[in-house]
């Protein structure tokens, strides 16, 4: 699955990185990076939690 970040919404709060540091990373520039282009289906629960916990609803699964 592909995870996308809406840059106009993301505020780099880092909740997603706290849930799945291997998938999400706030870089030194303060911007969120999605670390895997194709996230394995086995990680769906973490990704869904990251999407629902995002304070600015900036994450979604495509």
């Amino acid at each position, binding site marked *: 699955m592909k995870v996308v970040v809406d840059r106009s919404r993301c*505020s*780099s*709060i*880092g*909740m997603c*990185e*706290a849930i799945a*540091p291997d998938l999400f*990373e*706030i*870089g*030194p*520039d*303060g*911007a969120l990076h999605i670390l895997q282009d194709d996230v394995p289906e086995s990680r769906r629960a973490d990704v869904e939690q990251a999407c629902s*916990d995002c*304070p*600015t609803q900036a994450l979604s699964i495509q």
Partner: protein
Amino acid sequence: MTAALTRAERPYDPADISSLEFWSSTAKDREKVFAELRADRPISWHRPVKNGLFEDPNDQGFWAVVRHADLVEVTRRPGDFLSGEGILFESMPKELLDAGQGFIAMDPPRHTKIRRLLASAFTPKQLARIDEHIVANARRIVDDIADKGEVDFVAEVAALVPMHNICDMVGIPEEHRRTIAYESQFPDGWRDPRLLQGAEPLARVAQAILTVHGIAMELVEARRRKPEDDLITALVQAEVDGERLTDEEICSIFFLLIIAGNDTTRQSTSHGLKALTDFPDQRAWLMEDLDGRMPSAVEEIVRWATPIMTFRRTAAHDTELGGHLITEGDKVIMFYSSANMDTEVFDHPELLDLSRSPNKHVAFGGGGIHHCLGAQLARRQLNATFRELLTRLPDIHVVGEPELGNGNFFHTVMSMTAQFTPEKR
């Protein structure tokens, strides 16, 4: 929905959560009142808190949000409930707000841009990189008490762990650390005569801000000449909307970082040791597998301590919350200590359960844009400190009752005696 009453017309709830007496009691006593409110009147209007700092004739009261679900909702509606009017119960002179509350008392879009400057320093990965420093700081603090047998745990352990770690990150050298940690107590501790020692509250808070800003400016000028790998340098070099931050903005952010960095983990560490003393079975369970069980223990200690008891928002416009009409300009106070005892979310919240899972406490916030920037730092510090203490001073325990603060913001332990068998060298 209830009829729209103006602030002046609204009747006050009979429960007292505004007086200094209420805030001078214990968390256990306050919980009796919060339990009643959660059950019967989860959103309630109260008389203004006794201030003592700054009389605001327009302050007619506040809404109390005491349930977990409602607190999370307020947290996640930052467009309806603003932080820019201040995040403390009390009204504050604007200058004080600007000087002392940094980006915590800001709203988007400015908040987003400022917070982003600091975000990468507090990520789980970045903190994993500096974990050895955090562990070394815990070790050196325990080294210094290990042969004493009895200490004021707050002054000699709980205050020092976060002081060294946040100062390492921000870039504050050794000679300024104790001053910084001491002064950082006043923005919440002004109500406490033991801390004030006769000073006039507003003047003493202003003095604390001036002292800290003086140190901040000295460091800012030093980093402009010679950049280092620290947060002051990051702030000095940062650009927001193509402009450098002003000295005033840097000082305000600096002040926020040291208060948020010092006065939170200090309380969690103190309440944590008291909890481990009061619940020996839980402690024994933890000791059976210290490495494996510490992460869940840390979460429960943070819930138990709830180092920040309240945050305020201000209604941006007329809006609805839990069936009540909240009018523009109303103060809305979230009570974290109450939400963390909500039986809708926690089984037997009155018991320390170090294995609690899931543990959806709100001690770091309810998951909004102001969610604790330092949550991962706090977790690592508590982990390192309790690991060091329980391994090297396995019988360390609290003697007598802690001396508590009387503020409505930090859940302060002023002092607390701990005893232990001195470590053999």
